[in-house]
């Protein structure tokens, strides 16, 4: 005899049809979440692969060095005898008429090859191919004309230069600036027409033996640099492992993966609980049937499987559809986010087994585990209890007393709230999570704006010029020559600008282990009676306090490292073993960078710089009478806000995506859970209609309870979201980013969130009101079937 298939399966399509709206919104939420994350993972992995492959495909340099004058053939031969192949990588930085700077290279044919993204490479004079992202940011397209002081170039194509995936104009910049800086290539003839005075003589090198890991690169670069400085006058040396324009992209890509996975799994857990609440409601509704089936011999396992089928089916189909969309639509959305930040070459979509596993198998397993546990508990009752509709575990506690002095409607609503407490608990989890995302989405732009707005208040001068010591002035092997060069340098960097004030500065780094990541710390030596930083009294106080090597730390340093007065910090020189210990004697409100302050002469003494030496200027007017080659870094408002501007550009789109997604999730959860509450009470609603209650009154009884709870939960979620976000933000900045951007959450965000929450709920409430109006009166008169 052929075994009959479980006839309960016939219920599934009918249930799907009768509750299509509910399953559809859950399905859409799942598809959207899984699709986005799958798309992100696919794009992430594919682009990481494209980035990694680009080193070989585009023959990316192992490093570059810059010299003051073009190296002659014999120098190049001597350099190549050091076991490297040298390539010309000359460029000129041109300020365009629209205010942006374009670094123009001769078209590359051997090293750091360009990846054409659109159009063609320039072949004739007057033609130029510009970086694709820079073009996007400045609304440039193929065929447009770039103008710089009367000189015009026609854009023939858009490219990605393999050694500029992150558009750092200077390797010492905290952040790249793809809005104001771009790279471009012109044909050889065009490049030859540029004045030699404008050319930066940069050379790329590749090691003959190939490249090794980071430690190998560091050792090799150190010995190469030493030998190289004996052949040419170096003004810049940038091995690949330090070249931010090349490595920043690779370091950043993949770092968001964990966060995205957590996001997906939290959504799945919430949806699993939404399903659990839905199923629990169905179990209550069908308790007689369940009792009968159990009495007839259906096992608990069979019923668990039956009630789990629909959530699993919806999740599985959503996971499959989400993955298909992930590989097609969302992959491009996510890739665009990367293309919005980085100038990456074209990529090929790669099949990603991990992504498929994590966005299909894992969500289904999460759904199975949560729903199985909840269903096992719900169906653990005896068949008799189901037949008697007595679904309370243990003894029924009966109704809790409510004062008769309370108005009837109030008592009624309180009862509805307590009856639906499990729904409201899941709703709270959903509101908390949606608000968490929303707050995150709203907070980040605010933090960046606030940082830009408040930064001028803490700047000690409009400009800071950090001077660049020539290599020849610090050559330990040629001490006398170095001293002479230093004197020459000190004379050359004198300025006539009246409000310029000298200071000393020394760049150090934090020690890994003492901090979670290596952080650059600039040590400032401030002159006595400084007009920009009058710290004499504070320096005297800290001397009196008897600390060893006392310093004042910037508020950024304090906030990032959680420093207290009296703490000892150890800082080291980059690539050197020398370490210095300082005691934090106080703090200075400054958000520009992570730095410490001490008297100038003290700094010169500690770092053996010589009495009277200075390495920089504070000034409120621009200094123009010092040769640019002696200025290593200019710190002004624009350079300090580069981080926030670029972050806003890179992450702005993502933040809006997060805002919309969280609002959608908020809406869906409230819709589903309030729908469940109304369905659960359909019979009572119907009965109240028969008794003569109007729809408005019924809404006051049933819908207002949910309104009250939703508003209460929105308010309750805010402090929790704030606490959680501050913690996550601090962890993120500490472990993911150098520098520090202070946390800022203005009151208007709370108001925005409350308004958004209430408006979203109002839309759902209108839909639910329509539902209440449609509950038929014969519902109450129906048989239990």
């Amino acid at each position, binding site marked *: *005899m052929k075994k*009959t*298939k*479980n*006839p*309960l399966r*016939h*219920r599934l399509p*009918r*249930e799907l049809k*009768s509750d299509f709206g509910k399953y559809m919104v859950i399905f859409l939420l799942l598809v959207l979440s899984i699709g986005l994350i799958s798309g992100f993972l696919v794009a992430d992995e594919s682009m990481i692969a494209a980035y990694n492959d680009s080193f070989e495909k585009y023959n990316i340099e192992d490093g570059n060095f810059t010299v003051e004058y073009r190296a002659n053939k014999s120098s190049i031969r001597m350099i190549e005898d050091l076991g490297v192949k040298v390539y010309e990588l000359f460029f000129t930085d041109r300020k365009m008429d629209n205010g942006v700077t374009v670094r123009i290279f001769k078209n590359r044919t051997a090293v750091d090859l360009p990846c054409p993204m659109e159009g063609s490479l320039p072949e004739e004079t007057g033609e130029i191919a510009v970086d694709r992202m820079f073009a996007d940011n400045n609304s440039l397209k193929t065929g447009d004309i770039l103008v710089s002081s009367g000189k015009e170039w026609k854009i023939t194509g858009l490219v990605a230069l393999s050694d500029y995936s992150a558009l750092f104009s200077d390797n010492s910049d905290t952040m790249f600036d793809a809005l104001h800086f771009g790279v471009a290539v012109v044909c050889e003839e065009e490049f030859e027409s540029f004045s030699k005075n404008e050319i930066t003589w940069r050379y790329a090198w590749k090691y003959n033996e190939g490249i090794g890991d980071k430690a190998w690169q560091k050792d090799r670069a150190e010995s190469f640099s030493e030998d190289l400085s004996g052949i040419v006058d170096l003004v810049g040396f940038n091995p690949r492992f330090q070249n931010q324009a090349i490595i920043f992209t690779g370091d950043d890509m993949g770092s968001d993966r964990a966060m995205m996975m957590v996001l997906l799994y939290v959504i799945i857990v919430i949806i699993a609980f939404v399903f659990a609440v839905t199923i629990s409601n169905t179990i209550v509704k*069908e308790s*007689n*049937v369940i*009792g*009968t*089936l*159990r*009495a*007839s*011999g*259906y*096992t*608990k396992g069979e019923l668990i499987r039956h009630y789990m089928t629909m959530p699993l089916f919806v999740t599985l189909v959503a996971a499959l559809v989400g993955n298909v969309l992930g590989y097609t639509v969302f992959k491009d959305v996510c890739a665009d986010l990367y293309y919005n930040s980085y100038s990456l070459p074209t990529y090929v979509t790669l099949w990603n087994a991990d992504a498929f596993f994590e966005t299909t198998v894992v969500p289904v397993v999460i759904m199975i585990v949560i729903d199985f546990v909840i269903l096992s508990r719900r169906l653990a009752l*005896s*068949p*008799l209890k189901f*037949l008697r509709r007595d679904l309370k575990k243990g003894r029924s506690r009966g109704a809790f007393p409510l004062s008769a002095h309370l108005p009837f409607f109030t008592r009624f609503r309180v009862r509805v709230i307590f009856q639906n407490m499990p729904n409201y608990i899941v709703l709270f989890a959903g509101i908390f999570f949606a608000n968490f995302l929303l707050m995150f989405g709203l907070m980040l732009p605010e933090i960046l704006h606030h940082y830009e707005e408040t930064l001028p208040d803490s700047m000690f001068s409009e400009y800071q010029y950090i001077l660049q010591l020539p290599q020849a002035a610090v050559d330990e092997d040629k001490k006398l020559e170095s001293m002479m060069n230093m004197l020459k340098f000190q004379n050359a960097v004198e300025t006539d600008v009246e409000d310029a004030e000298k200071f000393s500065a020394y760049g150090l780094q934090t020690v890994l282990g003492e901090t979670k990541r290596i952080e650059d710390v600039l040590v400032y030596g401030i002159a006595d009676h400084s007009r920009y930083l009058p710290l004499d009294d504070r320096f005297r106080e800290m001397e009196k306090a008897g600390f060893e090597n006392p310093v004042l730390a910037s508020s950024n340093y304090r906030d990032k490292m959680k420093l207290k007065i009296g703490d000892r910090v150890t800082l080291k020189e980059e690539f050197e073993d020398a370490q210095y210990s300082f005691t934090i004697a106080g703090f200075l409100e400054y958000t520009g960078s992570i730095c410490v302050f001490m008297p100038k002469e003290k700094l010169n003494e500690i770092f053996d710089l010589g009495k009277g030496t200075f390495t920089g200027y504070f000034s409120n007017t621009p200094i123009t009478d010092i040769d640019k080659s002696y200025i290593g870094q200019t710190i002004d408002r624009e350079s300090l806000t580069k981080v926030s501007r670029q972050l806003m550009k890179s992450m702005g789109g993502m933040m809006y995506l997060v805002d919309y997604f969280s609002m959608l999730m908020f809406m869906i959860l409230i819709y589903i859970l309030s729908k469940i509450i109304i369905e659960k009470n359909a019979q009572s609603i119907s009965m109240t209609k028969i008794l003569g209650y109007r729809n408005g009154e019924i809404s006051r009884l049933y819908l207002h309870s949910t309104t009250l709870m939703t508003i209460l939960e929105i308010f309750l979620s805010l402090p929790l979201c704030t606490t959680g976000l501050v913690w996550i933000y601090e962890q993120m900045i500490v472990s993911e980013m150098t520098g520090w951007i202070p946390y800022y959450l203005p009151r208007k965000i709370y108001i925005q969130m409350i308004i958004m929450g209430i408006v979203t709920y109002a839309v759902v409430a209108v839909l639910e009101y329509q539902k209440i109006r449609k509950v038929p009166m014969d519902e109450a008169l*129906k*048989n*239990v*079937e």
Partner: protein
Amino acid sequence: MFLEVQGLKKGFGQGSARVEVLKGIDFTCEKGEFCVLLGPSGCGKSTLLNIIGGIDKPDSGEIRIEGEAMSLMKEKRLTMYRREHLGYIFQMYNLIPNLTVRENIEVGAYLSRNPLDVEELMHTLGLYEHRGKLPNQLSGGQQQRCAIGRAIVKNPDILLCDEPTGALDYNTSKEILKLIETVNQKYGNTVIMVTHNDAIRFMADRVIKLKDGMVRHNIQNETKMSAEELDW
């Protein structure tokens, strides 16, 4: 002996609120017998039926089905016992609302290794024309017939009926009783029916009258009437 009930006791509540519903029930039942448990409301009939059905447990006493003691059965074994040997019919039909008549009957068939032919059974139950309807498209009698179909399709050894006509009018009740009688005769299942309708005792092989949680009478009917002949 097919079914033996010995010294069955069951109470509910605690302390002063405790009520002893069954105070020591003893009776036996032969295979294929039509047995009626008769008594007023609250005398413990349904409790006794639920204990026989393995969905409630006695405080003491024993039930043996073909010699196997139910008290020794673990939860899983009890489920299998119900699955393999029992059919249940309730006063409320408890049909699955979004399954058709045919599918509701198949819900019972699924549980059996050797179910009756569903098509034939629907003819016997007079439901064949309604096989594609949902429960809310049926009358009370038709719904109860469907519930009977679901219970007997797996050809159970014992058919437990808890006030199966309690929610039905006179004519429909007689129809249902005739049906149960037919099933009993055609398939030879042991029927144990709980009722407070005194007239039904005339169609039974054995009548067990309960009062105050005790068996007051255990009567073997020498002659029995057909359901058709009953009147109340």
